[in-house]
């Protein structure tokens, strides 16, 4: 009894070896192995050896218990203790087998499974561990132990390269963050998996893995709270078992495991806190995944997060550089340039400074922003003098200056390039461009020397054909026509099918023309327009050929040439002029019918295609040809009139019937677009034959019959204007909208923006109107509607009370000679309104007076100006001047029908000055 009591005291004091020895001694005192005191003594002895820790002896004690008392009161706990002791004694197979038996007990299930996993892993049997873990997390992860099991399982899957299963588990764990006790391990697995996927170019899976990584703050918070929880559990469990030796034995056995885990958790946290934040590096991995996946914008989003969330991170340089590259690849020139500037400010000496410097200029160059490119290359050559792109930047700087016509600046750059890189990759082009600069500055003699020097060095060079052509240009300037013709023949022999052939042929034509060999000139010009790829050369050569043919009186050839041109290039802007000449040439021959037939044949091909904007112009030409009575037959065919005889009156000519006859072949297969266009031709004819009411009727019919999507850009523009003028703003807006949306490349786009601006202004949506007019002017570059857009913008600014800006625009309108007319009267009147609105009545009156003195023709503005002048006199306290002004107005008979006149009478009556 004394031994037992001593053992218990030692046990309660945590003196395990003494306690175990005491229990062993007590058992020896018992005569009967089956004595009722034996089971608790064996149990306590095993527990004491376990805690000592002496697992071999613990195993012995527990095994003795189970052998003698397999159904003993503590048999369950003893089995568990034995399994734990076996595990710690590294007897993995036996431990795993014992734990497997315990899985059936719900209370022990998780521990039994965790222990099996540990045992199998220690025994190098991952397959077995996976089997247990898959059982453990099924059907749903609900406990921290299961979450821990899932992390281990993900790790095992990753080790086995079963990545899909691992990612699925990580995603499942993302929704169970409250259950995760070891986020550090989870992070490690997620990153490893992500990297493996990225290497295998499985981007979606890589990103899913990276997203499963917890942030540093989350991990630290988790770990701290987990440690606190474990410490609390240890304290509470010991407190709860005081006074109950058997319970204490059990608690201490459990706590041994908890303590191990606690120490491990503390160690992990300490190590983790020493590590730098992994966030930026992880984001760079994500960005790379998106970039390699060709999702550049997504990569930019990730890089941006590095830049905004980690202002001190070393990864910022790589992130900013990555953003620049991605922005360049998505074609965001401005964004790219902004970022390049940011890079140069923050990482002037960064590892990518050279590339960034080059990129900033190259992107501007690509966007045709030569001035911007010049600036960037210039600055970068100074800021990054040792850039690997220094030579290229110097050469491109020269090119940007060359493109802007700054040949002197360009020459300096090219020379500097040749000085620094005489054998550089751009040396040949630099030399060639030096010669070209002389050509463009008109220094032909010097240019000839430089071009010959270039050709001497590079007879088969990349620019030899152009250099030889430029040399001919210089000789032409020196009137050396024979030389040019000889050189031209050689050139054409040496460079067949060369895209520059048109230019050379045109130059040959010029030489022949200069020496009055018109037939040869025509041939050369015709060859030039047929072979050139340049619109400029085509226009020049075509109309030069026509001019010389006319001089030669070869009208049928003129018509034939233009007909061939129209057939070959039906969309060319010169088609309309060509049609004019065809008509004129055929008329000269008395063959207007042939011209009409030709037009109709061409219309047949293109009339159903709304984007062919030349169709309306062809229809106009056709209407013009039909509007005039055809010339009578040639004089030779009719008998001469006798003296005193008057010619027989010509039969009446019905232009509309003639047009209808011409259009008939187009009507047979007409779709809606064609039908609308045929009506347009009729309206044009009505206009040409001075029947405006008929023209309006046809336009109204078109507006009613056709949907916007059936109309061509020209019809949308003209019908929109027509309807708006008639007060149908909604229908007009629908047409303009369709023009804007469906034909963004139309030459008539300024109608859409200006028309929509007019509609918005009429509806008092002044901000919107201002935006639309500004777009018309700045974005679309309005040409036909330039005046209307400028006036509209001025009106919108006035309505928004932005008087200074409005004044500038009205003054601009009033000062343009080509716009002189009603818009001038309106602009001057509006300038008066601006002054009046700001209480500058005298200045306003001067402007109103300018309207009714200088622009008397524009009666609506004259009437308004009289009335407003009177108002302003009255506001100045000059009632008599106001009365005199109104009386003068009433004397103007042309104004009697205007409502302002009635208003003037009313005011005079109110002021007791009725006439």
């Amino acid at each position, binding site marked *: 009894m004394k031994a037992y009591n001593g053992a218990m005291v030692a046990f309660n004091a945590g003196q395990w070896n003494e306690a175990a020895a005491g229990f062993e001694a007590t058992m020896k005192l018992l005569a009967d192995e089956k004595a009722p005191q034996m089971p608790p003594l064996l149990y306590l002895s095993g527990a004491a050896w376990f805690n000592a820790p002496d697992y071999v002896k613990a195993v012995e004690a527990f095994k003795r218990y189970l052998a003698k008392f397999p159904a003993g009161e503590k048999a369950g706990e003893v089995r568990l203790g034995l399994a734990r002791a076996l595990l710690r004694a590294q007897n993995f197979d036996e431990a795993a087998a014992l734990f497997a038996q315990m899985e059936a007990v719900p209370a022990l299930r998780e521990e039994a499974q965790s222990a099996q996993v540990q045992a199998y892993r220690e025994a190098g049997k991952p397959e077995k561990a996976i089997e247990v873990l898959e059982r453990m997390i099924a059907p749903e992860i609900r406990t921290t132990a299961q979450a821990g099991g899932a992390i281990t399982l993900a790790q095992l899957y990753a080790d086995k390269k079963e990545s899909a299963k691992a990612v699925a588990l990580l995603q499942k764990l*993302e929704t169970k963050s409250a259950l995760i006790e070891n986020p550090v391990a989870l992070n490690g697995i997620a990153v490893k998996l992500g990297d493996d996927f990225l290497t295998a170019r499985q981007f979606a899976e890589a990103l899913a893995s990276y*997203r499963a990584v917890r942030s540093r703050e989350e991990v630290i918070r988790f770990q701290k709270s987990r440690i606190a929880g474990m410490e609390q559990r240890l304290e509470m469990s010991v407190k709860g078992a005081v006074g109950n030796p058997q319970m204490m034995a059990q608690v201490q056995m459990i706590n041994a495991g908890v303590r191990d885990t606690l120490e491990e958790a503390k160690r992990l946290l300490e190590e983790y806190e020493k590590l730098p934040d992994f966030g930026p590096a992880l984001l760079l991995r994500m960005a790379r995944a998106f970039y390699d996946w060709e999702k550049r914008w*997504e990569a*930019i989003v990730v890089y941006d997060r590095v830049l905004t969330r980690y202002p001190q991170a070393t990864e910022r340089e790589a992130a900013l550089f990555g953003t620049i590259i991605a922005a360049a690849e998505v074609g965001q020139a401005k964004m790219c340039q902004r970022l390049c500037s940011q890079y140069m400010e923050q990482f002037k000496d960064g590892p990518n400074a050279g590339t960034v410097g080059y990129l900033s200029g190259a992107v501007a160059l690509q966007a045709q922003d030569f001035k911007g490119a010049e600036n960037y290359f210039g600055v970068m050559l100074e800021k990054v003098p040792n850039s690997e792109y220094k030579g290229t930047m110097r050469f491109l700087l020269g090119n940007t200056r060359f493109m802007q016509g700054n040949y002197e600046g360009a020459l300096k750059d090219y020379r500097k390039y040749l000085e620094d890189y005489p054998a550089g990759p751009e040396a040949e082009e630099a030399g060639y461009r030096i010669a070209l600069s002389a050509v463009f500055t008109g220094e032909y003699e010097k240019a000839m020397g430089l071009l010959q020097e270039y050709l001497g060095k590079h007879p088969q060079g990349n620019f030899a054909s152009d250099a030889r052509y430029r040399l001919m240009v210089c000789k032409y300037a020196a009137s050396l026509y024979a030389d040019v013709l000889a050189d031209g023949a050689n050139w054409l022999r040496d460079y067949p099918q060369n895209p520059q052939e048109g230019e050379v042929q045109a130059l040959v034509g010029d030489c022949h023309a200069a020496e009055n060999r018109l037939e040869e000139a025509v041939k050369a010009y015709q060859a030039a327009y047929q072979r050139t790829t340049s619109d400029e050369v085509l226009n020049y050569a075509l109309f030069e050929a026509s001019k010389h043919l006319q001089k030669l009186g070869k009208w049928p050839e003129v018509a034939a040439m233009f007909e061939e041109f129209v057939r070959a290039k039906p969309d060319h802007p010169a088609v309309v002029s060509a049609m004019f000449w065809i008509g004129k040439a055929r008329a000269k021959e008395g063959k207007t019918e042939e011209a009409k037939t030709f037009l109709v044949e061409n219309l047949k091909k293109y009339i159903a295609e709304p984007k*062919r904007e030349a169709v309306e112009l062809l229809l106009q030409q056709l209407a013009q040809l039909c509007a005039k009575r055809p010339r009578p037959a040639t004089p030779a065919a009719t008998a001469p009139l006798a003296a005193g005889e008057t010619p027989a009156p010509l039969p009446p000519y019905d232009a509309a019937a003639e047009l209808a006859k011409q259009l008939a072949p187009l009507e047979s297969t007409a779709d809606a677009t064609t039908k609308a266009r045929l009506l347009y031709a009729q309206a044009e004819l009505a206009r040409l034959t001075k029947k405006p009411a008929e023209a309006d009727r046809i336009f109204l019919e078109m507006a009613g019959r056709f949907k916007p999507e059936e109309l061509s850009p020209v019809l949308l523009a003209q019908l929109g204007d027509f309807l708006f003028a008639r007060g149908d703003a909604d229908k007009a807006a629908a047409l303009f909208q369709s023009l804007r949306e469906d034909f963004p490349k139309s030459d008539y786009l300024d109608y859409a923006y200006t028309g929509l601006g007019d509609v918005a202004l009429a509806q008092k949506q002044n901000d919107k109107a201002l935006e639309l007019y500004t777009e018309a002017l700045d974005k679309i570059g309005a040409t036909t509607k330039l005046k209307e857009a400028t006036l509209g913008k001025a009106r919108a600014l006035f309505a928004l009370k932005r008087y200074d800006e409005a004044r500038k625009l009205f003054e601009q309108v009033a000062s343009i000679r080509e716009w002189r007319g009603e818009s001038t009267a309106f602009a001057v009147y509006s300038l008066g309104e601006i002054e009046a609105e700001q209480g500058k009545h005298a200045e306003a009156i001067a402007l109103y007076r300018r309207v009714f003195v200088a622009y008397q023709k524009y009666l609506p503005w004259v009437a308004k100006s009289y009335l407003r002048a009177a108002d302003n006199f009255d506001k100045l306290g000059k009632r008599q001047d106001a009365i005199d002004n109104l009386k003068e107005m009433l004397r103007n008979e042309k104004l009697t029908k205007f409502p302002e006149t009635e208003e003037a009478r009313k005011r005079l009556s109110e002021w007791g000055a009725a006439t």
Partner: protein
Amino acid sequence: MGGGNMKWLAALLLATVSAGAQNIVLKDGKVVTSKGLRRQGDTIMATIEIPVPAIEGKPAHVQTGEVGYPLPQIARLDFPEPAQLRTAPDLILAGKAPEALALIEPVVKYYEPFRDAPGSWWDEAALLKAEALQAMGNYKDAEPLIQSLARIGGDPETARAAKVFVGAGLTRRGEYAKAVPLFDEVLKDAVKPVTIASASVHKGQSHLGLKEYESALLAFLQVPVFYPGQKLLVPQALLGSAKAYVGLEDLPQARNTLNELLKDYAASPQAAEARAELDRVARREKALAPPK
């Protein structure tokens, strides 16, 4: 929605609003297991079971009674998460906002008395209700709820979420420039993915309104890039980014994004608009193509 489904909904409501233990975790660590909780002034009343031993021939039995705990003593109320919080977003996503509203309203009502107590699910439920109302276009009823959330929301994150709704209101009214800084403020401090994703989507919409397509795109893409799990917001973000791509004249990318939306979120409320947008992209492509 047939009667059968409604019955299912009702059954689910009955089962989950009142289900589970409702414990009070006191600040001293003690946990009070209760059969039910109610609010009385600043005190939470817990219905608890008290075992009564056999006395004088009466068998042992269990008696119920109420014990009150003042709010300042309570660390948190331990309610189980209502299942509706998981179900309702899926319904909204499937274009069934009225069903979602029917599901979530009883939860809001149930937690109303505990809305300022830690551990209450009122904030989450009320935010979902506001989301459902907005999806139905019922901004009139959503507004006061949002204001209430902003005023008395239990935690700072709820106040941020409410601020996102306020910003969304400004965006709807076309006050884009005012809305953007509000979203930026939220994004600076927000920690919950749902708050960040929501603020990003609405910020993107404001930038769209301002025709700032690059900023719009960067805002919208936050969701699929970092928070693809926010299923309710992904279709909105995809639609928004497609519109931003159109603004940037990147029509192929716009088309791909819209197709992705229609493939993965065919039943979402954004699907119809995505189809219309796809038509717009096609028209635009046709408009930009050279003549035949």
